[in-house]
């Protein structure tokens, strides 16, 4: 275990100033650590990994890590990733997005990336809020909870990111939380190794913007709440319907054998060119 932190340090950009910009207790750092560990465990070269991010807190992740990193426009990270993957299928393209990034402004792109099954991995960091802009409600802000733009409680129903991805045809869908870092490591590895479109939804609490407005005294309270309310899928199934209502299942929701779009395209090209 001793080498874990040192290993992470090896992947960080030494020219960047640390600590990073995330608030104390923000889960995004844990995700970054997990991402580094899983990439290391898969034995991928730094050069072969492209980390693409959108705008928002999650968009700040790539700059710290020594891969090919791209900080794109709001919500469009998946479109850049699609271009990169089709242009050079050898690259492992990982997209880091926030909930607002992926499902609000970028909802269309998520739907279609899942549908066309492009071989990129999307990590959706769900903190239930627009963190960077100051805590406005997002499409995943739970019904009834408060934000700077829902001062009287959110009236709209929230998106279930994993479910959206699944019905859109994503061939690998999983959910985890930052309280389960080891599980997250293996889920990310599995998603990256998966040939088609893989999506991992990661619950990453935002105490600064969401927790404070919703009766969480400290960020540790949020982590405790996460620990309590996110049972693995098997346990979740055993719960009574009332309890299921309040719980958030974690684990793998979808995994099907498939071929990524870039592979299909390459095959079509080989056929047209008469190559084997």
């Amino acid at each position, binding site marked *: 275990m001793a080498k874990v932190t040192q290993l992470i340090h090896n992947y960080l950009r030494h020219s960047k100033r640390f600590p990073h910009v995330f608030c104390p207790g923000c889960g995004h750092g844990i995700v970054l650590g997990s991402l580094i560990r899983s990439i290391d465990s898969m034995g991928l070269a730094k050069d072969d990994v492209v980390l693409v991010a959108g705008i928002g807190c999650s968009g700040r992740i790539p700059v710290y890590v*020594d891969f090919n990193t*791209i900080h794109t426009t709001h919500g469009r990270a998946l479109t850049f990733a699609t*271009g990169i993957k*089709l242009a050079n299928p050898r690259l492992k393209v990982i997209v880091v997005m926030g909930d607002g990034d992926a499902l609000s402004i970028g909802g269309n792109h998520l*739907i279609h990336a899942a549908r066309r099954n492009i071989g990129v991995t999307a990590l959706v960091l769900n903190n239930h809020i627009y963190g960077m802009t100051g805590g406005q409600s997002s499409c995943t802000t739970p019904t009834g909870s408060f934000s700077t733009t829902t001062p009287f409680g959110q009236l709209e129903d929230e998106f279930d990111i994993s479910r959206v991805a699944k019905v859109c045809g994503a061939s690998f869908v999983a959910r985890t939380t930052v309280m389960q870092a080891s599980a997250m490591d293996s889920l990310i590895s599995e998603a990256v190794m998966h040939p088609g479109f893989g999506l991992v939804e990661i619950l990453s609490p935002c105490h600064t913007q969401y927790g404070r407005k919703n009766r969480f005294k400290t960020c540790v309270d949020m982590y405790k709440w996460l620990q309590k309310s996110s049972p693995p899928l098997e346990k979740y199934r055993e719960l009574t319907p009332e309890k299921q209502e309040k719980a958030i299942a974690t684990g793998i929701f979808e995994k099907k054998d498939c071929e990524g779009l870039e592979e299909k395209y390459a095959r079509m090209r080989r056929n047209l060119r008469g190559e084997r």
Partner: protein
Amino acid sequence: MAARSRRNKTTEIFALGNEAVVEGALIAGGTFYAGYPITPSTEIAEEMSSRLPHLRGGVFIQMEDEIAGLGAVIGASLAGRKAMTATSGPGFSLMQEHIGYACITEVPLVLVNVMRAGPSTGMPTNPAQADVQQARWGTHGDHPIIVLSASDVQECLRLTVTAFNYAEKYRTPVILLLDEVTAHTREKISLPDPEDINIYSRLTPSMPPEWYMPYEDNMRGVAAMPPLGAGYRYHVTGLIHDDHGYPTSKPREVEHIMHRLFRKIDQFFYDIQIVDETQCEDAETCIIAYGCVARSAELAVQQARERGVRAGLLKLKTLFPFPRPAVEKMLRQCSSVVVPEMNMGQMSREIKRVNNGQSKILTLNRVDGQIITPGQILSKILKG
């Protein structure tokens, strides 16, 4: 599809303007197209979809919207491809944010916009030249950009090659403006032998990666650009960044990159400025035109000469950076200048800006979705 004429023995084909764009792109080394279909630019996508898969590594993808189209093009360009997209009015509006992204991250790409008439959905199958200022200033924030305009089918091919060359040489998005008439006219064009054409590709770094600076300021103002995965790991961001690519808000570094972005285009101005002069040497009345209107103007000049009026035509192929020296020369020389265009005066605004009272400027604007006829220009010349 079905639009492509099968190759003749000579290298002449009978093709649409849109098809000529595709020929140009392929000659220039384009291997990636992502876009969203929109009239009157669709033939470009259709043609690309049937041609690109035959190329080694060629990729065509139809994205979910124009925003995604340009996003994928930027991604592919970062991965080392010569990439392009094509669109029309509404799609061009959607692409604006990504044009700015490509400007600040200095990603080479070519964007063809076949202009429509009117704002919003406008008139899909009628010509106009109403996106000239949008092409220049569409995306937010100060930025330099190269905007070209083709007036006939052969030019569609040539200028597409030029657009790719500029994009690669100066690491910048290049916008090629067409209009419905140019895009949908079929004409005979000769396909140049690729060996007769200068093709430029971006410079890639050749040094140990640790010493590579992705946005280094050098004499050219254009840094070398490696494809993703080549060992030069760097950070690409739409935030204002320093020479290493990391976000910065230090006033000195911000000023530095903004000035360099403009300088890299400015210092190559005379390479970028392309204009055609027709009978300008002794002209007293000059028509300054671009796109399909320049062809009407050509006939009008001929007819005016037959009536003893010494008219000339300055055809602008580069719209931005604004070809000021070429225009100023005609403003000094001629007593009147006619600016016919199919908008409410987007280019004449630029010309008036540099006029300084040297010449009388007559505008001729048509916005009914019809091309300006030679007769209209002629009567303007005769009256002026």
